[in-house]
């Protein structure tokens, strides 16, 4: 009977978690999502607690009360400290998974060696490695974000760093395999402890080469790892709820980190293998901005997260008759609270006032238009410069290249913006731009 209750509870909690995430679709339903999550969790906890094998109720209650005592204040941190809190929380999650895995192993070792099948042992080892590396990794991340004294803020890099990191992980995995194959050999407990230790170490090594700016991505990956460790725990405990909830979490962390990587113009593999250091160096090195084909989602993402977007239209906008699309984009951004300005170069287009005619046709208010002289001092504060079918008027060649036909023409300093998005017809390299995004016609 209680077993049936537990199973039913698992189904129910799973459904609630799915709805919880689904409702995050939309700010309007998002709080309902939290309620669903809380209910799901409550169902899961109660259903587990009432199982007959749970006998130390005081002990469980104590731990739960302690969790509340620490959890409530933690939820009241200032919003600026939210990233640290999330990281810290991942550390706790990782720790819990790691500890449960360790407990299961030693329990099996001392009491039911037969239960340590290869499958179960693999799950335990995976759980422990993921759990502990998440634990220390997240702690480090939280420390860096909180600017704790004894954790270096700046990325710490040294030659062969990647080799060392991967080495540690490989050794841990090898030890793990040994334990899986011989779970009850005399050396197995030590080997298992070795796995734990190496996972703890790897968590630290994984984070130190990463700078603060990349932390959100890292935290999102750690979130994914925490989810996967819950999945492993589910396999160990033969608990489908753990598997589903963990999988939901693991996949959401994955998606989020992929999206963030895209927004930061990084490939996901680059981030996944912790090789952030390399990019950091390249960034520090030179002015030579790379250009890259951006996806529509990535561009969306960039634009929505910006505070100030400067649109720089040119002849291409006119040729493509894209002014109405531009207006749609303008409406969307304004609605999201982004400040949008249109920087009109004196010779943009092919006739005096060409841009004005088109933007007025699309009913873009005059107040949103600014002249070149006015916008240029503001460009370094601009999050995204969106160059729409303009070339000469943002081409830095006008500053440097003596034999360019446009040498000496004042230009709009699109290149000073944090990010430049250019929409154009061909892929001829655009000197000022990070690269072409697909035509706005494809935008949702």
């Amino acid at each position: 009977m209680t077993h049936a209750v537990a199973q039913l509870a698992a189904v129910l909690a799973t459904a609630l978690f799915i709805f919880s995430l689904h409702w995050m679709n939309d700010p309007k339903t998002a709080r309902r999502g939290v309620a669903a999550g809380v209910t799901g969790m409550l169902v899961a906890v109660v259903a587990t607690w009432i199982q007959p094998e749970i006998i130390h109720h005081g002990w469980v209650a104590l731990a739960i009360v302690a969790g509340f005592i620490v959890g409530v204040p933690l939820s009241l941190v200032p919003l600026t400290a939210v990233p640290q809190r999330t990281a810290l929380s991942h550390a706790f999650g990782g720790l819990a998974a790691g500890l449960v895995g360790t407990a299961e192993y030693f329990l099996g070792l001392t009491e039911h060696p037969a239960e340590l099948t290869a499958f179960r042992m693999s799950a335990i080892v995976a759980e422990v490695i993921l759990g502990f590396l998440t634990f220390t990794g997240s702690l480090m991340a939280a420390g860096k974000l909180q600017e704790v004294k004894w954790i270096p803020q700046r990325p710490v890099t040294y030659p062969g760093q990647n080799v060392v990191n991967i080495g540690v992980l490989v050794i841990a995995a090898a030890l793990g395999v040994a334990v899986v194959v011989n779970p009850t050999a005399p050396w197995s407990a030590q080997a298992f402890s070795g796995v734990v230790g190496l996972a703890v170490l790897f968590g630290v090594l994984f984070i130190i080469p990463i700078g603060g700016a990349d932390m959100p991505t890292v935290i999102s990956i750690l979130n994914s790892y925490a989810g996967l460790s819950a999945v492993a725990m589910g396999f160990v405990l033969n608990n489908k709820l753990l598997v589903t909830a963990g999988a939901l979490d693991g996949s959401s962390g994955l998606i989020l980190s992929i999206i963030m990587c895209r927004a930061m113009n990084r490939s996901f593999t680059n981030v996944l293998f912790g090789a952030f250091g390399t990019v950091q160096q390249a960034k520090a090195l030179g002015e030579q901005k790379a250009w890259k084909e951006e996806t529509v989602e990535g561009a969306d993402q960039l634009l929505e997260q910006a505070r100030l977007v400067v649109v720089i239209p040119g002849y291409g906008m006119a040729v493509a008759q894209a002014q109405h699309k531009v207006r749609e984009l303008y409406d969307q951004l304004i609605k999201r609270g982004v400040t949008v300005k249109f920087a009109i170069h004196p010779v943009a287009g092919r006739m005096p006032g060409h841009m004005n005619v088109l933007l007025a046709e699309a009913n873009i208010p005059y107040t949103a238009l600014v002249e070149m002289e006015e916008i240029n001092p503001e460009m370094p504060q601009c999050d995204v410069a969106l160059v729409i079918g303009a070339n000469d008027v943002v081409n830095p060649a006008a500053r440097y290249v003596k034999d360019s036909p446009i040498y000496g023409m004042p230009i709009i300093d699109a290149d000073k913006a944090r990010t430049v998005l250019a929409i154009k017809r061909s892929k001829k390299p655009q000197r000022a731009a990070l690269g072409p995004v697909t035509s706005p016609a494809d935008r949702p």
Partner: protein
Amino acid sequence: MTDYWSMLFVFVLATFIGLGVIRRVSRLLYTPLMSLTNAISAIAVVGSIVVAGADYPLTIRILGGVALFASMTNIVSGFLITDRMLKMFKKQ
């Protein structure tokens, strides 16, 4: 063995759901989403309760108790802070 296959099945299906659902989450909500999934991933609490409360040796139960405490912290703070952030959203 059958059981593990079920688990695998469940895992694959849940991953599909996760990918599908999260991809449609509004980008405005990524920060609360992260703390929400963080709270949900504390479902490890289920395992911790078993380890902490069943008839096991004390050392095991201590490990379980710590794990339970850690998970519970996550659940409480994760849900609370998500709700706090979403409330501010509403006001905007």
